[in-house]
């Protein structure tokens, strides 16, 4: 295949920016859960600060993709590639927002909240990180098998979250004075669970990119 080398290079650059955004999103998630477990308010504040950089990267990806659409008038796979770049960037930015929300919960909880962080949040985070890795690998390699695997992992995360939520609700009955803190814990779990949903969306995007068909892996 020959032709349009410059455009091909610009598409490649866009993909590199998306991979960079995914890497930073994963770092933010790791830092956010770490800060939650260690009740590290200053680290949580740093995460909120870092998020602005990720928002800027998302905007840069959006701008570059829109310029390419306007200038290159892409069709077929080229068009799907740019649409998918916009969608994936949006999902990564939303994942980073969820990491930021965990950091906000850490700040709400404060340094001396005195309740144990539910162990499932850590397990869910490990799953969510694996899902981000899989989603990006699936995108880089245009591998629909990996995309389908994301839906399976998402079900696991959803179940973990449901179980955790039930346990936290039970704890509110036995520990009603801590209800505000337990709520923040439940929120944090919900934020990590949402990250799994966004990773699954990326799987859907990869399937659209490769097959040209829209599928809903979240249901």
């Amino acid at each position, binding site marked *: *295949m*020959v*032709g*349009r080398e410059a*455009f091909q290079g610009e598409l490649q650059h866009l993909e590199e920016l998306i991979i960079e955004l995914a890497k930073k999103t994963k770092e933010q998630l790791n830092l956010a859960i770490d800060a939650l477990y260690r009740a590290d308010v200053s680290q949580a504040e740093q995460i909120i600060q870092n998020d602005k950089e990720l928002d800027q990267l998302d905007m840069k990806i959006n701008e570059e993709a829109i310029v390419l659409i306007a200038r290159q*008038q*892409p*069709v*077929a*796979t*080229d*068009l*799907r590639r740019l649409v998918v770049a916009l969608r994936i960037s949006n999902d990564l930015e939303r994942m980073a927002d969820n990491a930021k929300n965990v950091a906000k919960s850490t700040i709400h909880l404060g340094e001396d909240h005195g309740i144990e962080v539910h162990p499932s949040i850590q397990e869910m985070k490990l799953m969510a990180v694996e899902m981000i890795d899989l989603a990006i690998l699936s995108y880089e390699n245009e591998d629909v098998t990996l995309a389908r695997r994301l839906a399976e992992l998402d079900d696991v995360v959803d179940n973990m979250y449901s179980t955790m939520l039930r346990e936290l609700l039970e704890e509110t009955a036995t520990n009603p004075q801590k209800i505000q803190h337990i709520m923040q814990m439940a929120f944090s779990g919900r934020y990590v669970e949402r990250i799994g949903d966004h990773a699954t969306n990326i799987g859907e995007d990869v399937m659209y990119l490769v097959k*040209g*068909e829209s599928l809903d892996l979240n249901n």
Partner: protein
Amino acid sequence: MSMATDNKVQIEVSNNHTTTENNTTQKRVVYDTKNLNLWYSENHALKDINLEMKENEVTAIIGPSGCGKSTYIKTLNRMVELVPGVSTTGSIAYKGNNILDKAMNVEDLRTRVGMVFQKPNPFPKSIYENVAYGPKIHGIKKKALLDDIVEKSLRGAAIWDEVKDRLNENAYGLSGGQQQRICIARCLAIEPDVILMDEPTSALDPISTLKIEELIKELKQKYTIIIVTHNMQQAARISDRTVFMLNGEVVEFSETDQLFSNPKDKRTEDYITGRFG
């Protein structure tokens, strides 16, 4: 206009077996090309073409230079026969009648199938005479009727407002885009069923091009339009279905939305994304 109307009646009567009633959702096939092969002497220019073109649709034909798209469109009104040494096999049914049949009256066919060319080609006459020419040679002489046809055709070609006060001026004095719309009006004046367009905007500026494109979208309410274009964005903008041709063959024929978003054939993908070669 009585002549064209009479002919239409005849065709509809002779064509009942292939038609679907107008009030049903399924559109009638206007052109049904089956196993069409065409040679320019030894050169096999069209190979086993099978295509169905439906009424009130815009069908775009795209493909690289020399792929056979202009040859194909010129078989639809048998203009291709003007090239010496042309021979064909297969059939092209126009409303059920094989137009490649030598018994088919070519003039009669061209009354129903108008054509607009790449370069605007008005006659060196007034705007009025350009449009009235066709009806006149079909025997219409009454001034009032001709006036009516001219106005209706110029309105149909979306140029009436621009020329209504200077109908007696020479058409050569108009801009390229206006001249092309005069040619479309000239085509409409004989009340065709089908309008063939061979790269109708390739010599026009972007604004004139968009005007013609808007016009094509309006015209398809009344006419069947088949357009050859090198401008893929134009095909994507205005057509309902698109044919991609390569080396005299039809590679892909599908809904335009489908062809430009998710083509089935890799050769189509490579061509429309500019990676052909």
